[in-house]
């Protein structure tokens, strides 16, 4: 072994140096997170007011006059909730099928591969795809179109999150149920889905967090409006786009509100992310390991 012929002082010096730069890199990344949060809070907090979150934009809002972004908050909550609910309907059966029927077979491998590939498709491409669908069906930008595209974006994330949790379920549990004469469906619905509960809640919150923050796809499909959306077929505002459009404004007052909108969005996303850790830690107590 050539590397052992180095003098020990030098080897230990290199060791200490590498360890040092590893720690520095870790501090850098943690510092980046701190810096992002700090900047959003410092810029957003002064502009945040009660009227920001309780009013819709009034006349001249985009020139710095009165109003708020309630339209965007409500729109984003509708979009993310709808998208997550729609993605749930499909992701739970897929995760159950992967576990109970496919397992670690070649087919299961292909399905997981395609889910991972779907996960990697950027939201701008989903947005463009949604746009082609809307042209094909003669639809206009609407809440419904936004929900459908967000559901497509969230589907692979949610399915893989459930799949990762349920893969750790002991095989004995499944075998015990099968040995007692249950069909695979009964195993799926009575045994696997209960063990999957922490996975499902994590998936819901992960999907919701991803959906509420996505801008590029709703840009094409959900449009933007100053009114609070009342129908699935109407366009709707969303928080990421509210941040984006207001920061593009030449008026400093409007820009400040853009920062406030970014703060609101960040708070929602962080609450969802921390909440998912907390809930899954609590629910994990009730699963069999």
């Amino acid at each position, binding site marked *: 072994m050539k590397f052992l012929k180095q003098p020990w002082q030098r080897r230990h010096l290199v060791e200490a140096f590498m360890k040092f730069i590893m720690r520095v890199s870790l501090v850098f990344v943690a510092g980046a997170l701190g810096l992002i949060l700090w900047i959003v809070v410092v810029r957003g907090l002064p502009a945040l007011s009660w009227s920001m979150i309780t009013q819709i934009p009034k006349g001249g809002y985009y020139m710095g006059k009165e109003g708020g972004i309630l339209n965007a908050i409500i729109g984003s909550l509708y979009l993310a909730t709808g998208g997550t609910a729609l993605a749930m309907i499909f992701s739970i059966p897929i995760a159950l099928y992967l576990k109970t029927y496919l397992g670690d077979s070649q087919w299961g491998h292909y399905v997981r591969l395609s889910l991972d590939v779907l996960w990697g498709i950027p939201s701008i491409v989903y947005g463009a795809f949604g746009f082609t669908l809307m042209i094909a069906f003669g639809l206009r930008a609407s809440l419904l179109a936004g929900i459908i595209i967000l559901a497509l974006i969230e589907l692979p994330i949610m399915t893989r999150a459930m799949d990762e949790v349920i893969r750790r379920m002991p095989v004995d549990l499944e075998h015990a149920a099968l040995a007692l004469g249950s069909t695979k469906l009964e195993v799926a619905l009575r045994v696997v889905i209960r063990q999957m509960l922490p996975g499902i809640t994590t998936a819901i919150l992960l999907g919701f967090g991803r959906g509420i923050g996505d801008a590029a796809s709703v840009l094409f499909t959900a449009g933007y409006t100053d009114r609070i959306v009342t129908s699935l077929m109407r366009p709707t505002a969303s928080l990421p786009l509210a941040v984006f459009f207001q920061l593009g404004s030449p008026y400093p007052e409007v820009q400040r509100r*853009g920062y406030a909108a970014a703060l609101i969005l960040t708070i929602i996303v962080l609450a969802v992310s921390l909440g998912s850790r907390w809930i899954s830690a609590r629910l994990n107590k009730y699963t069999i390991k």
Partner: protein
Amino acid sequence: MSQSSQTKTPQAIQNTEGRFSRPSVIPPRARIDGIARRSFFTIMLLPVFLIAVVTIALVIRSWPILQAYPLKDLLFGNIWRPDKGLFGFYPYIIATFWVTAVGVLLATPACILISIYLAEYAHARTRSAAKPILDLLAAIPPVVYGVWGLVAIVPFVDKVLAPLSERWLDSVSIFRVNQPTGFGILAAGIVLAVMIAPLIISVMYEIFATVPNDLRHAALAIGATKWQTIRSIILPQVAPGIVAAVVLGASRALGETIAVLMVVGNVAQTPTSIFDPAYPLPALIANNYGDMMSIPLYDSALLSAALILLIVILIFNILSIVVIQRMLRLK
């Protein structure tokens, strides 16, 4: 033994007749199971086919422009004037490449070091503290990264990095400061590097965990230091996985839209320096969706830009995920 062969009940004889002996009425539970299996299977096909459907839809919509112009003119044409019927993607493609390359080059060394630290050195407490940090970084929406880039990174590039580079690296053309605004490839690259870091680190960490402990113990037993073990024994083992993780990160960087759009400057030119502003493909699509339908072939051109992006990302993605999944399964 002899008893069982003698006492063949009529039922047992019936059973040897094969498929005809099955009960003619399927029990309802089994029937429901069959229905469920088929419907679950149908739902499961959705993600498998979705990739194909997205690709085909974009191919159909971009067909008119692919028919009207040779592919060479689209990919290598320098001029983008949709109103004059000129659709040259070259500056946008090059810009996408530059921004991604800078982001990946900045992220890769730090990500390798951090994942080595977390996998090989760190205390369990450090590890469990790092996990939520990476999760939060991954959860922050792109538009908030854009805000951060706009408020912190663009002035940092403008006030700190650009003067430094002017002073020390002015003779190197890729570091020359031609248009000092702060907006540009470097700012976008820094933002992208932080955005893709959580993904790269978590994949690399899993890859390191696949190396059997025996290898570590053997190297340490003959007197190697920890770093020597990592460099000479572990890194060669996981090299394909490391490369795959970086490629996966690159595929995320390629498609990132809003955050990049906010800091990259959006000037359609072929960049020569990392301080130049640029105009990547996703930004082009997002900025022009509004007047897509007003000029002939414009929508087709923008959707073909999305198609180019999709094809490159699919190739990167599939290659890296196949390598990563294989390494994780070999564990």
